[in-house]
């Protein structure tokens, strides 16, 4: 049993990789080959789809837009969540538990019907079709998550650390930046990773709040698919490229993810 234990994760990873292989496979084929028949690997290997995406501004601007608002959202979410998580982990205050649960309820609101009020709200304050609009809107579900994760990590740091620092004459902001933040660095990494992930994969709100200037790549994909028929090769290449930023980020935080959660209040 123990000796064959590695088979379970191996088979699972195989299961995860097969659809991704199929996507890559199609992205290297011509549309004719895709629609013409069933081939396990590209017979006429072509990079035409990728060339089209990387040279056509309509396509590559989508990637730039997505990366801008995702980065801004991650920065805002983590920066706002840090002091709040500290408050939740160190103090009891009026209505704290209810506030915490209320924050979580914002992950439960179905985005589908909030789409229209969101559109009108951000139009009313003149932010429609800007990167900051999407970054702010994604705070709705990312800030609660960041607070939740960071609170766990902070509760793992003994309170004596804070008290010793105050006795040594540290002011609160200096203590927080110089001593406390390095202690929970892996927690910040994990929280940032999850904010990046949920902002990167969300489409409904991002699509509602943008039209031209800040349109995310995922929305461009749906538009192109309906406008010029079934350009499967192009669609597959665009899809394959949306995996790249995520893969880069996960590579950088891979050690944090394993150790990271363990340090938290898990």
């Amino acid at each position, binding site marked *: 049993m123990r000796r064959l234990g590695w088979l379970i994760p191996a088979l699972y990873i195989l299961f995860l990789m097969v659809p991704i292989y199929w996507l890559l496979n199609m992205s290297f084929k011509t549309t004719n080959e895709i629609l013409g028949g069933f081939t396990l690997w590209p017979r006429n290997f072509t990079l035409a789809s990728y060339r089209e995406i990387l040279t056509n501004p309509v396509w590559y601007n989508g990637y730039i837009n997505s990366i801008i608002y995702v980065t801004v959202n991650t920065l805002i979410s983590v*920066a706002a969540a840090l002091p709040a998580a500290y408050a939740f982990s160190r103090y009891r205050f*009026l209505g704290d538990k209810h506030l915490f649960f209320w924050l979580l309820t914002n992950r439960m609101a179905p985005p589908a019907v909030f789409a229209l*009020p969101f559109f009108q709200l951000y139009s009313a304050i003149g932010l429609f079709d800007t990167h900051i609009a999407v970054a702010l809107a994604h705070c709705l579900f990312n800030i609660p998550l960041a607070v939740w994760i960071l609170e766990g990590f902070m509760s793992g740091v003994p309170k004596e650390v804070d008290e010793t620092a105050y006795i040594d004459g540290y002011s609160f902001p200096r203590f927080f930046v110089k001593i406390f933040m390095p202690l929970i660095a892996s927690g910040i990494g994990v929280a940032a990773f999850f904010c990046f992930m949920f902002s990167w994969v969300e489409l409904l709100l991002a699509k509602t709040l943008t039209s031209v200037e800040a349109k995310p790549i995922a929305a461009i994909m749906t538009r192109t698919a309906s406008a010029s028929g079934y350009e499967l090769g192009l669609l597959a290449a665009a899809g394959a490229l949306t995996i790249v930023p995520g893969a880069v980020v996960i590579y950088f935080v891979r050690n944090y993810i394993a150790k990271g959660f363990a340090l938290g209040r898990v």
Partner: protein
Amino acid sequence: MDKTWNNRAWFMVLPVLALVAFNAIIPLMTVVNYSVQETFGDNVFFFEGVIWFQQVLNSDRFHAALGRQLTFTFTILAIEIPLGVAIALAMPRRGFWVSVCLVLMALPLLIPWNVVGAIWNIFSLPDIGLLGRVLNSFTHYNYTREPGDAWFTLILMDVWHWTSLVVLLAYAGLQSIPDAFYQAAKIDGASPWAVFRYIQLPKMKRVLIIAVLLRFMDSFMIYTEPAVLTGGGPGNATTLLSIDLVKIALGQFDLGPAAAMSIIYFLIVLLLSWIFYTVMMRGEGQQ
């Protein structure tokens, strides 16, 4: 940990409160306002009272969508949670392969949701998709025609997409167990089941709460992936709650009924999540 009472802590929470309240409370109030009125566009509204709520509560269409939603959510929870825990238990605890496993497993989580739908859409096509082709050599499979096949594909897609989240969380819980615990268990001659039941499961409890809550909430609101994969079809076979909601709100532009439906939807999620949260946190206070 003993926490001190300090109401000035509110100042630290203010930024979060302002940002979330701006995004949550204003749209929520607007949805409530819509739900009691009729509109024909141009911001002209007529008060209708609770008629939309009555309509939605008595509509077979809503009952059917809610039934499908509950079926979907509890099916994927029943598959993903045990599967995720089993994979986390079988994973190596240290060394080179840990990183490889984690990076590869996290990949599906980082793919935009409509791309996930698109991948499975082409992967399952009966004529040119790998899955469709393979299944068709054993049995008759066509997810755009057969409701059963559509459901099978939908659930397989969700398992593919989200089981890794459970694995990551469960694995993190396992990592926090000191080696001394396992050595002690070995000396006592504990069976693998006893190790799981009395050492591993209690340590994973908290992360499993997070995993179940997250998977429950997210699967209950799932929209993009099934919308791209099947569009709710064939017929209405895979029309989950939020797909139905968008069909009413944006397809037919019936804002009132859609708003009433989303409030009922939100209240159901709120109730179920609160029950989950309360039941699972019950043990926390006594430790």
